[in-house]
């Protein structure tokens, strides 16, 4: 498939690229190499460093260390425009063109052909038609961009990027909102660009598409390079292992998790909970002192499951019972009143109140449950905050520091403290260890085990399979918005989880 031999000099290369944000090392000495005439997939779970790598390559971020070579020469783009001029163009998932301008204007904005100093509409349209004909697209370029489907808009965006840059094309989740035929159409365009010798970076979390179009695959995890493979020699299971980071040392689990007594009645039971187009109806029950792990790839429906359970998103029917009594859950408030807690995946936008102090963040849920009329006294707040800071080892100079200035791991611990303060019976933790350093990671896992020993019921969603294997009594596997498997006790191994995730979807088998 590749036109240029692998020995030739890479078109674009990153060598030892590093980028640090306060509290996290987003990229840690990552190497990346793109050849002319190849489609190179960049894969990894959330927080793996994909988007940071892309942003460093396209000048949206300045790197802290390492080098970027384009045609063998070191470059240091200050912004995306400079990167574009050098030859690196990007197309994002959300097409960032101007929807109410015409297709032609979008294609040629800023460099429209002029006559007598004025923009010539006719010339603009003619040039635009020529550009699009190269992509096999014969559409009316004088119509507004948003009158066309997202797929067409994507291709217009690609045409614009290629005509501006012309060496490297980065496609960031281009297929996320396309249907099957549209994906086909887009891939035809990508293939023809590859034949013309462009280097194309393809980011997607649809593994079928990745195998369909890519020549090589680079996998990142936790800001580090996991490996580069030829797509033709890699199978799904190996790829998922790389992405989810199974340690190769076959660590046996002897935590005594096997003998959980399922004879007793569950504490919380969901039946037929689901939402059309979001997650298929599922049954899930959790016992006293049980940790249920939830595994699945990004976008598989893990987070959606958690949000439905916590009533943070609307459900289509289904019932919830607690100790046999039905619960009416219409909002997170109801869920909290019933003794639920939920630490969401996206700490920044859904977890912390960034400008508020650690103390206020810790008491927030308790205060909200008590109502505004019954304030938690300031002295009690301080006592509680100091107590949790000590017990959970939250590293902060004092309880009055704004939580936004803490590192990710310490924010996570403070959010855990927020829920512990409400003394919940059922706690949902969505990716509690994402993006935090190794030390804090181990502490959070230790806490999960302590909580469960004290009788709390936990649902923990994680991409780290080793972690799930360590603390789960049971693991639910989610794939393509369906709960597809439930592993209990001795069945839980990283291999069995990977196998359940990797099984290609039946639709796929039927289709190809």
């Amino acid at each position, binding site marked *: 498939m590749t036109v240029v031999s692998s020995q030739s000099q890479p078109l674009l290369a990153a060598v030892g690229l590093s980028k640090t944000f306060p509290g996290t090392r987003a990229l840690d000495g990552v190497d990346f190499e793109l050849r002319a005439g190849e489609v190179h997939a960049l894969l990894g779970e959330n927080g793996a460093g994909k988007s940071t790598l892309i942003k460093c390559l396209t000048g949206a971020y300045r790197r802290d260390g390492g080098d970027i070579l384009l045609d063998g020469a070191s470059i240091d783009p200050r912004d995306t425009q400079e990167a574009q001029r050098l030859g690196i163009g990007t197309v994002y998932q959300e097409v960032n063109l101007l929807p109410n301008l015409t297709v032609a204007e979008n294609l040629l904005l800023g460099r429209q052909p002029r006559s007598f100093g004025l923009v010539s509409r006719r010339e603009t349209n003619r040039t635009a038609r020529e550009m699009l004909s190269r992509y096999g697209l014969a559409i009316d370029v004088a119509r507004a961009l948003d009158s066309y489907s997202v797929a067409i808009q994507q291709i217009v965006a690609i045409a614009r990027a290629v005509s501006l840059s012309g060496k490297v094309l980065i496609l960031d989740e281009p297929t996320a909102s396309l249907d099957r035929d549209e994906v086909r159409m887009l891939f035809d365009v990508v293939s023809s660009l590859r034949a013309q010798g462009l280097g194309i970076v393809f980011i997607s979390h649809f593994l079928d598409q990745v195998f369909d179009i890519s020549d090589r695959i680079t996998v990142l995890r936790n800001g580090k390079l996991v490996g580069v493979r030829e797509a033709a020699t890699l199978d799904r299971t190996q790829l998922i292992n790389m992405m989810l980071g199974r340690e190769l040392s076959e660590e046996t689990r002897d935590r005594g998790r096997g003998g959980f007594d399922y004879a007793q009645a569950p504490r919380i039971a969901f039946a037929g909970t689901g939402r059309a187009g979001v997650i298929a109806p599922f049954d899930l029950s959790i016992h006293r002192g049980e940790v249920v792990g939830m595994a699945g790839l990004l976008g598989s429906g893990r987070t959606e499951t958690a949000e439905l359970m916590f009533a943070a998103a609307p459900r289509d029917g289904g019932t919830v019972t607690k100790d046999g009594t039905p619960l009416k859950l219409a909002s997170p408030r109801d869920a909290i009143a019933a003794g639920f807690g939920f630490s969401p995946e996206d700490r920044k936008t859904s977890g912390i109140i960034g400008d*508020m102090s650690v103390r206020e963040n810790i008491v927030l849920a308790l205060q909200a449950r008590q109502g505004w009329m019954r304030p938690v006294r300031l002295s009690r707040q301080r006592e509680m905050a100091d107590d949790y800071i000590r017990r959970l080892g939250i590293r902060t100079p004092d309880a009055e520091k704004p939580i936004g200035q803490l590192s990710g791991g310490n924010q996570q611990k403070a959010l855990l403290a927020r829920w512990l303060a409400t003394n919940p019976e059922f706690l949902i933790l969505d990716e509690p260890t994402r993006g935090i350093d190794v030390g804090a990671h181990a502490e959070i896992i230790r806490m999960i085990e302590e909580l469960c020993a004290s009788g709390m019921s936990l649902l923990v969603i994680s991409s780290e399979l080793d972690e799930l294997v360590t603390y789960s009594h049971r693991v639910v596997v989610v794939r393509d918005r369906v709960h597809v498997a439930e592993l209990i006790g001795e069945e839980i191994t990283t291999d069995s989880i990977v196998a359940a995730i990797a099984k290609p979807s039946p639709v796929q088998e039927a289709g190809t």
Partner: protein
Amino acid sequence: MNGTLARFARRIAPQLITLAVVVAMIGIVFPGFFDISIANGRLYGSPVDILNRGAPVALLAIGMTLVIATGGIDLSVGAVMAICGAIAATLIVEGYSLPATLALSLGAGLLCGLWNGILVAVLGIQPIVATLILMVAGRGIAQLVTEGMIRTFSHDGFASLGSGNLLWLPTPVVIWICAGILATLIVRRTALGMLIEAVGINRRASMLAGVNARLLLVTVYMVSGLCAAMAGIIVTADIRGADANNAGLFLELDAILAVVVGGTSLLGGHFSLIASLIGAMIIQAINTGILVAGFPPEFNLVIKACIVLAILVLQSPALQGAAILFSRAKGQP
């Protein structure tokens, strides 16, 4: 406790200093400014005048601070003043008792706030657009209530709310100070203030932590409506008549300015009612100062704009960043 007090002092220091500078400047151009005398059982003098004339903006600033703290804005307060003033004047003319008149006009303010709150919190319309509706419609409603004329009345009890005395001070001063203290106590002695700030900083995270963000938003818009009603009643009582066209005209802008000068970010989050009230007094001091300094009236708005600009530039993050850099540069050899 000492730490809390020190933090509070640090928080309102810029506003107090600004107020002192503005007042000192007026004192320089107009030496008689600080003369205060007692006559007819009340204090007279320019400082008292500032406190009195500043009453409507101060009252509006209380509600506006809470709305802005949630990340919203209430453009309708000037129009709500007109509505409530018109209702009050009409009812008193119709012969309703004073308590009934006050209760109904304050109720009208709450209703206006409820309308805004529902648009913002339930229908999810952007606050600036949602309150713009009532800003435009409100004045029309007020004109319908007064039937297009200036509705005058003669009722000494009602008029005394605008021009009477209480505790050696003009009644409006006592009203806004009491409202300010009451609001501060309610907000800070309960958890309301913290919950409002939480919703203003991160509504989704607050909701997921169990805060009833929707109810809270409706409540702050209702408080803002109530404050506007009080301001409208005072203005109407003061001139003994309801002027649907001019009552509270552009006062929403002064109220927003008072909050901003008071150091509360328009993005929402941490707020200080006391600082906003000082901000309202700063604005009134500028208004009064320009008047007593004897500038031709056509200069008023321009001078006011320049002074406000200067205050905001001094508070701007860019300048504060520069100040930090400067102090660091000095610190290094």
